[in-house]
């Protein structure tokens, strides 16, 4: 497995090909689709990103992963888990801090979907599926998942190699 750790300003970012412990029980799918605007047939690519920023009274944390695959139209599907609770089992491995709870509660899934939808039209065509996620019951927020989705999309779209994703990560995170 290829992985990369990057520090940009106050943010710490981890990028990897996949993280199996971030798979979770899917309660439902949030979906978005758009009429075909152009055809760009490409091989599938998968990434997992984790973001972490200390803020003093709390941190900003999110882990999100998924796949971009060839498709004849443009679509985004985000797997959603059960709602957030306090004290969930931290079974999702973190590369940046204490382990996370595997899952994508509705408030985070919606933030991730909105972020991906904002970015997706540049794809032309392709299917984005988000099926890996981890959160911290104190430190995760919709804003953190918005950022994570934005970064994940850029990596998927750029088909970066995880071990060589630093330049792309720096470009995206510097804009936060």
């Amino acid at each position, binding site marked *: 497995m290829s992985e990369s750790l990057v520090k940009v300003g106050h943010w710490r970012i981890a990028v990897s090909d996949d993280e199996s412990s971030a798979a979770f029980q899917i*309660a*439902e799918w949030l979906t*978005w689709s758009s009429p075909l605007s152009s055809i760009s047939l490409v091989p599938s690519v998968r990434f997992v990103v984790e973001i972490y920023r200390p803020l*003093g009274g*709390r941190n900003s944390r999110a882990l999100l992963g998924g796949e971009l695959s060839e498709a004849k139209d443009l679509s985004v599907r985000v797997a959603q888990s059960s709602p957030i609770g306090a004290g969930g089992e931290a079974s999702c491995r973190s590369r940046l801090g204490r382990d996370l709870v595997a899952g994508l509660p509705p408030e985070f899934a919606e933030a991730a979907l909105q972020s991906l939808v904002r970015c997706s039209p540049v794809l032309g065509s392709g299917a984005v599926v988000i099926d890996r996620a981890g959160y911290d019951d104190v430190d995760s927020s919709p804003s953190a998942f918005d950022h994570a989705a934005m970064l994940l999309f850029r990596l998927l779209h750029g088909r970066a190699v995880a071990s060589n994703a630093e330049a792309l990560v720096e470009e995206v995170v510097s804009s936060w």
Partner: protein
Amino acid sequence: MSTSSTSAPHTPARPDSALVKSFWGHQRLHFWQPVALVLSVLFAVVGSISSAAAGTASHSVSPAISSTMTRSAAAPCGYDQPATVVVAPSLELRPCAHVATMTGWLPSSAQRRLARFVAAEGGAFTADDLGTVREYLSSQGFLDDPANNAMVDRIQSAIDSGRPLTEGEQNFMTHELTEANLVNDGMSQEAAHEIASGTHPPFSNYDPAVISQYPDLFNENWFHYWEGG
């Protein structure tokens, strides 16, 4: 373009009837734990009075504010923070061994909360304390966060006007002063944050007005805490 969702209604978890929510924290404890804790506090108070009468100050809560986060060698279960923590120049933490020994069987999180409860008794934060917090947050780049900025502004306004700090404001000050002093003593920010997080119940160190002002920066657990959920 279309967006669709088939999600079920979001229903907050219902409290377990066998458990009660403790008055000092978010953690749900069994019904006998708060009772035992109250007895422990009574023992601690009696012990403090006895110590004062005997001419020792080691167990008392000083008028200049103070408390304890000390590990007693005999404590059956220990704290996970250093032996002595100085929260702030005006919040000198003093040994209070009764708290450690009489409540040693409690979960460490509850012990920390009790220690903090004792610390806050009679305490008030000053403009100097806020200056320390502001300087620390700025030095770490944490004032980029609008919620931190809003908290500092609220607390400044309260100090200027003489308004008592709200629970969230007090917890914010205690958390940041603890973290600042530990970092200034050489601890990593991450480790200091973990310890500082033990000085108050989870989700309670930002005022609910600030959480509502910046809902994207907080998850639903923060809202549930202040809604009493």
